[in-house]
């Protein structure tokens, strides 16, 4: 049977993390499902968790006045959704919209922040992993901004 701890331990985001830490993380984790069309979170709401996407697709959207939301990026299986739980003021900056049914593991950010404060080694491991995700997404966004397919 797939236990939460095993799913977390086998997730690429937590690759190489000692079992002691995955055990700590499991204490903050739960299985979640989102139907297609639902919003997982919205801009301005309190950011209390992040998600390991197990299946489905999530669109990150930004709200623009008098327009429908603009899709900035999509995330899918094996990816991490949300880092606003990690940094003050702990508010979501974008909408996260399930464009397909989404199965994920939710990790309670408040619970995890407390554990990271208590155990800085765990905090460093988590920060290193999120920093890598941030770097990858920043690069992807910069490439997107180049608009490389436009006529020059």
């Amino acid at each position, binding site marked *: 049977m797939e236990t939460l701890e095993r799913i977390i331990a086998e997730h690429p985001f937590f690759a190489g993390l000692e079992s002691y830490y995955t055990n700590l993380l499991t204490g903050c984790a739960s299985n979640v499902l989102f139907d297609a069309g639902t919003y997982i979170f919205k801009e301005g709401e309190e950011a209390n968790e992040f998600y390991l996407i197990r299946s489905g*697709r999530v*669109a990150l959207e930004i709200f623009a006045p008098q327009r*429908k939301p603009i*899709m*900035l*990026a*999509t995330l*899918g*299986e*094996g*990816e991490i959704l949300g880092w606003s739980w990690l940094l003050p003021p702990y508010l979501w900056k974008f909408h996260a919209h399930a*464009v*397909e049914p989404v199965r994920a593991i939710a990790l309670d950010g408040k619970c995890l922040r407390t554990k990271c404060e208590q155990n800085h080694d765990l905090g460093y491991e988590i920060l290193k992993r999120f920093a890598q995700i941030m770097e990858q997404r920043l*690069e*992807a966004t910069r*490439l*997107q901004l*180049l*608009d*490389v*397919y*436009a*006529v020059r």
Partner: protein
Amino acid sequence: MIMATTTIDDPMLPQPCPVRQVVRETSDTFTLKLEAPSGAGGNWFQPGQFSMLWVFGVGELPISISGDPAERDRLVYTVRSVGQATQTLVSREVGEAVGVRGPFGTGWPVEQAQGRDVLVIAGGIGLAPLRPVIYEVLHHREKYGRLVILYGARSPRDLLYRKELAAWARQRETQVLVTVDYGGLSWRGNVGVVTTLFKYVRLQPARSMAFACGPEVMMRFVARDLETQGLTRENIYLSMERNMKCAVGFCGHCQYGPHFICKDGPIFSFDRLRPLLGKYDL
């Protein structure tokens, strides 16, 4: 004036090829189907090669061949209409002639890829020079491993060959992933640059060969990410583009470092290109 007696072996003399069909792919991109010149069978194209298309009275353009190598009665080109010459080219009526020189340049090493997984990574109109590779693999499915097609475009409106993409995705051992930089309101697919698709592919780097074509900056990041994933530089191939004129390595217009793109390329392995990619002046 083009003489009917022109031999196809003379690389500098265009062969008049009548237009059979013009298909609108997107708002600015068209596919031209031309009748292949008689006797072209002995000088048939390799996937990745290009022709010089002469629009009489306007000019000559290097255009990659985007058709099926198995269809020897036609030459197919996908052209983005961005200037006077390309606009005139795609405005040809059925029956009108277009001058064709070629095929020229190196092709994708499809035979070398036999027995391996084939990764096709395309950006924008870069899917056109790669389409013959896809046809080739699908025609000889038993000779290749998995076929993975990763395609990025500016927006859903700019996606080429939409019906074919859907049909390819239904083929066995074939994975097709499409992404756009700007998704519209009704788009339910991936949004992000083409390199963001790598994470959805289970690569077997030691038994894979990758072919990439698109804007140079895109290919640079694609090649770097493929190398990070474990592909060797010798197994990553890129299609380069420069201002080609003579197409036979005489004029020097398309010089790129020590290479002439028209003759030594347009297809190069990444190990040959790596020292040059990203240099400002080239």
